[in-house]
């Protein structure tokens, strides 16, 4: 709940919209209750009347029709206002998350790369977006309607007001609170069981070859069946609690209706209430519990929203791993990179040990070595995505920590192993590297990356949409488009991590020839497994045992 409250600022900016939606939903509910109440009173009064045609039927029938139409219009307006405010919140929330996330990149747990965090963040933001629409709004509206009807009962049928008020309060406040407390453990179980099941699937796919080789696919299957069974059982337990809570709400409604009936009949016998009024009130009481019908589900959504809020604040309020200096130095035009006595690791044994190296401006060097040896980590250090445990890196004579991160990044362009294409046009994907580039520059970059001919024959050319994750093009083509983006960047230093993945041998050789030409005058550091054609690189180094040689 505390975490959810940290978002009240964002909710407050849409206060008007949410307030309007809440008021309209109250009007809807009230009109429904009033419609039933008036109708009950009207037909009872009509049945009791002996006046026949002299009975004033204009007022009640007008009321009945009026309430009907108010209900329809209010409901329509409520949904529109609620969705409008929710969609506005959605824009704010995403903007807020991006603004918080950028300075904190890269996230320390590195799961952002694997997509788990992405889907978790997306789901969490969705849960928060709809928190008002599906959770806070309905609970608030039910509460107000119950209080209002208790007031009406206190005026017209004082004997039953306390009973109704108690039952309604219990249904709207006590049952949800109890459900939240009781389901906390079951809810956590569901989350951790789901994580276990997911890990089991990942183990099965990533370890598919190992499992096959050792002939233990059957064990893996029964292990997964067990985790999936445990997930189903955990969800079952949660569902039992929800069903019990749902029963409690309905039982309280039953108690309120039967009690009001009993006390009302007493009052009728005592002559303190008129028959038509009693009939109207009873129908209103029955109608008012319509507001509680979604409460149990709303509580479930509210718990989800609270958990989502906790996870989001944990990320958004984490201290950034890398902080800009208070008094940043100016980046010089000199592109010399000096690595002095660098030691770096991820908590375990160091990946790089006492590494020294100088890269002169305009030099083209290739770094090779077995996978997982720390080549990509080295590129990360140059970009100051992490700081080495010992030693220092200078760019143009200035230590990296003295520079603003934005200035470091403006000086280097990276083609990472998992470089993404965005779900946008080819043009927009390229312009990320240099927003003011003209079409000629784009075509030059595409030609240098060896993909211009492919783009030229596309019906929409540069305006072709890429599809999510660049799914519309092959891996090799996607790779080349990412490369074109890096070549387009005005940065004097290019860092390329496995640029030729997905290219065949001739294309690979051609790429190194082109790179040699296209990046004249710029520093190039390539991490690669490829066979490097003679004369395309100034130096080829091997990273092994934490050392460059």
């Amino acid at each position, binding site marked *: 709940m505390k975490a959810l409250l940290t978002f009240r600022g964002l909710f407050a900016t849409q206060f008007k919209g949410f307030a309007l939606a809440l008021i309209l939903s109250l009007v809807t509910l009230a009109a429904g209750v009033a*419609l*039933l109440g008036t*109708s*009950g009173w009207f*037909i*009872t009064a*009509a049945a009791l009347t002996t006046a026949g045609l002299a*009975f004033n039927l204009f007022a009640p029938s007008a009321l009945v029709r009026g*309430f009907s139409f108010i209900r329809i219009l209010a*409901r329509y307006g409520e*949904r529109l206002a609620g*969705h409008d405010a929710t969609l506005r919140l959605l824009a*704010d929330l*995403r*903007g807020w998350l*991006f603004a918080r996330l950028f300075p904190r*990149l890269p996230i320390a747990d590195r799961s*952002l790369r694997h997509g788990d965090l992405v889907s978790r963040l*997306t789901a969490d933001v969705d849960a928060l977006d709809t928190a008002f629409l599906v959770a806070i709004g309905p609970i608030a509206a039910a509460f107000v309607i119950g209080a209002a009807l208790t007031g009406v009962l206190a005026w017209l049928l004082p004997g039953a007001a306390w009973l109704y008020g108690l039952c309604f309060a219990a249904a709207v406040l006590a049952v949800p609170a109890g459900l939240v407390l009781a389901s906390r453990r079951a809810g956590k179980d569901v989350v951790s069981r*789901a994580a276990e*099941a*997911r890990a089991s*699937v990942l183990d099965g*796919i990533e370890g*598919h*070859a190992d499992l*096959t*080789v*050792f002939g*233990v*696919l059957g*064990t*893996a299957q*029964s292990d997964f069946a067990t985790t999936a069974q445990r997930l189903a059982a955990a*969800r*079952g337990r949660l569902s039992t609690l929800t069903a019990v809570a749902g*029963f409690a709400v*309905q039982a309280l409604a039953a108690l309120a209706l039967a009690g009001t009936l009993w006390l009302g*009949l007493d009052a009728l016998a005592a002559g303190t209430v008129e*028959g038509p009024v009693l*009939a109207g009130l*009873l129908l209103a009481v029955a*109608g008012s519990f319509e507001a509680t019908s979604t409460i149990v589900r709303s509580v479930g959504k509210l718990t989800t929203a609270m958990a989502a809020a906790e996870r989001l604040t944990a990320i958004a309020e984490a201290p950034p791993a890398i902080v800009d200096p208070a008094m940043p130095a100016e980046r010089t035009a000199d592109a010399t990179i000096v690595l002095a006595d660098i030691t770096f690791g991820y908590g375990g044994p160091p990946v790089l040990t006492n590494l020294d190296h100088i890269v002169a401006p305009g030099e083209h060097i290739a770094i090779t070595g*077995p*996978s*997982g*040896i720390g080549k990509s980590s080295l590129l990360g250090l140059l*970009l100051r*995505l992490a700081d080495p445990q010992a030693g220092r890196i200078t760019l143009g004579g200035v230590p990296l920590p003295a520079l603003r991160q*934005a200035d470091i*990044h403006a000086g*280097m362009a990276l083609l990472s192993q998992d470089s*993404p294409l965005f779900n946008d046009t080819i043009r927009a994907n390229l312009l*990320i590297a240099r*927003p003011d580039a003209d079409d000629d520059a784009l075509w030059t970059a595409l030609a240098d990356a060896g993909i211009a001919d492919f783009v030229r024959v596309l019906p929409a050319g540069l305006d072709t949409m890429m599809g999510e*994750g660049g799914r519309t093009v092959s891996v090799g083509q996607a790779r080349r488009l990412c490369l074109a983006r890096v070549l387009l*960047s005005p940065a004097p230093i290019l860092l390329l991590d496995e640029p030729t993945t997905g290219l*065949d041998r001739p294309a690979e050789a051609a790429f190194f020839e082109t790179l040699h030409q296209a990046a004249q005058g710029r520093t190039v550091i390539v991490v690669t*497994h*490829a066979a490097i054609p003679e004369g395309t690189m100034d130096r080829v180094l091997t990273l092994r045992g934490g050392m460059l040689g």
Partner: protein
Amino acid sequence: MTDTDRHNARTLSALRHNGGPWLILATGAPLLAGGLLVWQAWTLASVLGNAIEARAPVATLAPGIVLILALLLARAALAAIGDRAGTEAAEAIKLRLRTTLFSHLLAGSPRAATQPQSGAASAAIIDQVEALDGFFARYLPAMIGATVLPVAFGAIILPLDWLAGLLFLVTAPLIPVFMALAGWGAQLATERQARALSLLTSRFADRLRGIVTLKLFGRAEAETSGIVVASDELRRRTLRVLRIAFLSSAVLEFFAALGVAGIALYVGLTFIDYLHLRTTPLTLELGLFLLLMAPEVYNPLRLLAAHYHDRAAAKSAIGEIEAQLGTLSPLPSGERACPGLDPGSAAGRMRGPSPRTVSRKGPLARPKTVDLSPRGRGEARGPLGLAATSLTLRTPDSARVILANADFTIAPGEHAALLGPSGIGKSTLLEAMARLRLYEGGIMLDHRPLADWPEPDLRARTTMLGQKPRIFAGSMAHNIALARPGASPADIRRAAERAHVAAFADALPDGLDTLLGEGGLGLSGGQAQRIALARIYLRDAGLILLDEPTAHLDAELEQVVLDDLKAHASGRTLIIATHSLAVAARMDKAWRIAGETLLPTPLPTGKGRSVA
């Protein structure tokens, strides 16, 4: 409705059968509760009618009040039971679907091009299957209720008051028609809205996925404001659509309100003799009953409308699952099309290795338990020879030839090195020899075509350490014992010592029982490699295939690890793919892969640690 749409709907209803009796209970309970509702409304109306019109004393009405309370409680209980049964049914269906999908995934060849990415597959099996929940737990019961209850209520009321009954009977079934009419556009609009929202969500996820790239290109501020502008633009467009989409639910509300108001006016006007449509006089009891039933006739439809999106969500989830893991349609009958390569159809051009022996028996068939202990299968022991004739290997997408028409022989008990720069195809060749991927040409293992080896025999007699062995979530000991389920702690311990795992494991407080994160989180590359190497020592294989077993080790440790490996491999055939000339120097012979061919190469003599 498009064809895909219809196909998805069919797949969903086929899955229904796995819900069993729980699904019947989940559908039946609301229907029974609906029946009790009629009884309850009648009792309430008669208590009120008697009290108000006939001035009956409270005492005589007491049984009626108790009955109302009992009926209300019974309906509440039925609702809870139906709810719980719905979840149970949905869980049963999801469990069944998940295990089937997972088995199916494992039944495919691990290196087939059609195998999905791990992230996408786990999302499909966990998240997309979860999205089917609402369809079975809520939508299906609501749909049956909406089909049966309004008509049943109308039929009950018809003999009591023909006009009210007719009103209900005509309007209730008409509502879906009107909803469809008023919202032919509305249906389209709803879909467009769903699409717009999912577009926004996917744009958000898309940018999130590439957020580091965006930061490195200095796009932080531009993207932050960009996402807000895009969200706002989509909001404007979505709202235009919603204005129409919500009309269809307004139609529903209109009929519900019309029903209540119409009944109220009709009953009221009849009482004051303004209307004379009945032959018998209308009692207050009956009037109140009609009024109480009026909103209930429309309620099942409202409930259905509330759960309508569950159906759309489930349909799109089915589409997503099939996109990732292949078609689901024949699944309930137990046989299903496999998205992987079919061994039969590949037989013509490719000599079908059958890494999918499991799948032929159907996805749920489990391979027979194999006794993998050194003592087991004593009848078949000793080193295995290997011979390849005009062997051709391609990348999984068949785009590139890795090895063309290679011939080579490895005698039983021989130790051979496979050299060549990374990415040249050493791993592919090893995997082909382990029958993990397709190949063209012939491989004979122990004078028997590799393709003809029964899966359990092949796995019992060969073993392999891949380049990126998977470290599973669990303890170190558990990870080592993967090679021989049921291995004794002493055996595991010995294997750990020989692979030099014990050296770093003993420094940890829990030793070999230390829990490892998923994917080997918390281990260095070299440590993960050695844990995987320990698995080899639990096997009594005639052929051992190792892919860069010393890649992450320093020169000194490399030699020590090799000493142990050589000792274990004496009397067995050993093939090692490696970069390291120091490793190759200790083998009996070596090949080099270069330019799609396999060339015999002299053994490196220098003890110096240089790199191939």
